[in-house]
């Protein structure tokens, strides 16, 4: 085989080029920490890594939703704790009527109850990050709107309908309609004390449709997607909010019963006649007391439900973190280098490069010309 003069150099240059390219690649890998820089270096690994990146990004978005759901859940739970204090106080007061002996006692209790109503409303209209917590889906509007008495108003019930009382003659005897045999009723004008007080409370939020006809998500049911196939409804459901509404209106009823000193049903009135009446009448304190037990239970149940929600969120957070870390590990396995292995490869290539340079310069430096005179 003939070995032409430039055969050495061509072969050496080719070899040096290949070794140099390898050195550059290994150096690039070491400086970036990545085994793959471009998709053509390992298309299938890059394909998997891109899919992983998309999934990681989705988990991050869902995790942010989860954080928000947690915030809403924690605030809601704390708010219900505060509401429970109001309910507890109202319940204790309603059960403790022994001290109510004079009109002044009743009035003082009525004013105290009114304070609880105002306090409870402020608590229940709590917001977090601009959203009302107990409004169902209608989170931009305060859910518990108080309608207040003005001068000249009569007492009303929770629907705004006037409450009546049995008319009495000058002797205090109840008046009966001769034709129907029923009592005659009259409206109850509000006292000066009551002007500006809450007449009744309206709920402006949405109610949860827990069983929508087509199985679809409805506007009433605010859900956040917080993980792979996982959703949570962090806001207090509308049906629950309506129970809180009932509590407020019965607090108003209790206050009005204190004002009217209606501890129990008037013994002068015939229950049989009263039973036929359709006129809305003011509840007695005795009637209202057992209902506050229910309200206390409702609020407690609400707190428990948020506790369960927060527990679920905690579990989902762990699942999300675990999935994210697993995906990150997969990405790393696909794209990252094994530093020790890469350094060894770089050293090996460097050694080969130096050997090629050394042997090349030795061979190319000599020819027959060096030995003839």
């Amino acid at each position, binding site marked *: *085989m*003939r*070995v*032409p*003069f*430039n*055969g050495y150099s*061509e*072969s050496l240059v*080719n070899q040096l080029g290949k070794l140099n390219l390898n050195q550059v690649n290994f150096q690039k890998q070491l400086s970036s*920490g*990545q085994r793959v820089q*471009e*998709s*053509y*270096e390992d*298309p*299938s690994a890059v*394909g998997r890594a*891109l*899919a992983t*990146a*998309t999934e*990681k*990004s*989705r*988990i*991050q*978005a*869902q*995790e942010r*939703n989860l*954080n*928000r759901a947690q915030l809403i859940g924690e605030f809601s739970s704390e708010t219900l704790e505060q509401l429970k204090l109001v309910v507890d106080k109202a319940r204790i007061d309603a059960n403790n009527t022994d001290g109510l002996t004079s009109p002044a006692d009743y009035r003082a209790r009525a004013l105290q109850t009114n304070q609880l109503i105002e306090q409870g409303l402020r608590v229940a209209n709590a917001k977090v*990050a*601009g*959203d009302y917590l107990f*409004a*169902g*889906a*209608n*989170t931009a*509007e305060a859910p518990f709107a108080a309608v207040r008495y003005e001068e000249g108003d009569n007492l009303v019930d929770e629907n705004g309908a006037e409450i009546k009382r049995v008319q009495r003659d000058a002797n205090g005897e109840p008046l009966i309609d001769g034709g129907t045999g029923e009592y005659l009723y009259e409206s109850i004008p509000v006292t000066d004390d009551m002007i500006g007080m809450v007449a009744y409370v309206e709920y402006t939020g*949405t109610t949860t449709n827990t069983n929508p006809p087509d199985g*679809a*998500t409805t*506007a*009433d049911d*605010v859900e*956040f*997607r917080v993980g792979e196939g996982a959703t949570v409804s962090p806001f207090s459901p509308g049906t629950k909010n309506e129970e809180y509404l009932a509590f407020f209106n019965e607090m108003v009823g209790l206050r009005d019963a204190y004002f009217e000193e209606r501890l129990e049903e008037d013994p002068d009135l015939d229950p049989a006649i009263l039973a036929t009446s359709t006129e809305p009448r003011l509840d007695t304190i005795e009637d209202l007391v057992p209902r506050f037990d229910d309200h206390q239970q409702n609020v407690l149940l609400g707190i428990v439900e948020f506790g369960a929600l927060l527990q679920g969120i905690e579990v989902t957070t762990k699942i999300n973190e675990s999935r994210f*870390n697993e995906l*990150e590990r997969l*990405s*790393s396995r696909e*794209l990252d280098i094994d530093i020790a292995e890469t350094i060894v490869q770089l050293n090996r290539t460097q050694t080969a490069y130096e050997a090629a340079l050394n042997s090349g310069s030795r061979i190319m430096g000599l*020819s*027959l*010309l060096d030995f*003839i005179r």
Partner: protein
Amino acid sequence: MSGIFANLSSTASSLQSQSLAVQQAGKNIANINNDSYARQRILMGTVGSRESSTGQTSGPLVAIGTEHVRDLFLDRQLLGEISYLSGLETQDFRLKQALANLGDTIDRSGDAQFVDDIVQSGGGLRGAIDYFFDTFESLAARPNDATTRQVMFQASENLVDMFHRLDQRFDLLDNELTSQVGEEVDILNDLFAELEEINLSIARIETGNPGSALDLRDLRQAKLEEISEYALVESREVKGSDGQIELTLPGADGDREVVLGPGVSAKSLYFDEADSTFRVSGSSEEVDLQAGLLPAVLDVRDNTVSGLQENIDRVANSLATEVNELYYQAFAPAGTDPAVPEISFFQQPTPPPGEGGTGVVTASDIALYSEPSDPSVTDFIPLSASSLRTSETSVSGANDLALEIAELAITDQADLGETSFSEFSSNLVTRLGQDIRNGQNRITVQEDVKELLETRRREVSGVSMDEEVSSMLQYQKAYQATSRYFNVLSEMLDTLINGLGR
């Protein structure tokens, strides 16, 4: 007496031949680094013989010619391999450019390491689509939050902008490739003209002296190799034409189109943009260049780039259609109960096909909804951060619509071959990456084949320093010896003329 003179003459001829051989060795050494040079060797031999008293005596040593050490088979084979390699390398470069245009870089330094890191999911179309749907997911959890709405709106603008930029980049690449084809065709035509010039020069020199234009033949081979980088040409020496070659290109019909040759002036290749074909001037037949830079550029333009553009358009259309199908609210004029304005997310298709619309969106014209679809629509709400709808209802915190749109991120689309938007966009990157990798594997093989042939050719035609120096010494010694013989003859003659006459 006549014998001495004859010997003197023979010796002079021998000296001349040795001298020529030394000169040739010097020339070979001078061209030692000239890749296109094929070594030459002086052929020597005796010419004629005569009857003498001792029998037949051979004639003087003369240089009877110069051998051009070339392997024509290797030369011809190399032309093809150069074509294939050049085409693959061009394709590799352009495909990498297309890949860079897609913008989906592999950069782990920007990756989120923890679930609560705030990092966007990469660049490129896939990243923009992911970001779009992720912000919709966030909007579902914060429908009233002004910042989230602004971020969502910006993500939508970013997505639209990404489609536009991709379209522009690929349009630019398409135009650049078209320009490149035109410019490279011009260069190739110049090379044809130069080759013709060399061909004619060879013919002039070799008229009556076949095979003598050795350096020009080297130059012609170099020129042919240069031409081969552009297209797969075939050359053959035409007998009886004083060393001229005929250069042909493969025709689409299987015949070969002559580009130049004896009696055929160099023709021009031209590119017909209308049907993306090449033709040779004076012929209506299409030529199929098969390999080399020109068909490679055209292949990237007509297959890869246009394929990518088509796929990006598909993503744009599918995405705009699917989002609008959910988001669109048809206009109901005043007097209708209820009267509602037209609402849409993307400008087209508004109304979407599900509502009777027929619009098709491309990456170049995708836009956010800003004006009514029809002049009859007198009330509309352009898309903005504040007008973004998250629900079909008017309930402020409802998020049913936002959830449904966010759900599209993981929904397989029939228009995209039952893949999600992200998967389809990722596939564009990985498929192109696979094409490049396949091409690189072929380049490696092709380089090996070319290197093998070049090495073989260097072995045959390359200059060896040791061989040439050794030849030079050999001819120098022969020259010295012949000179010595000449001296002896001269002295003999001197003795004969001056010594014997006294």
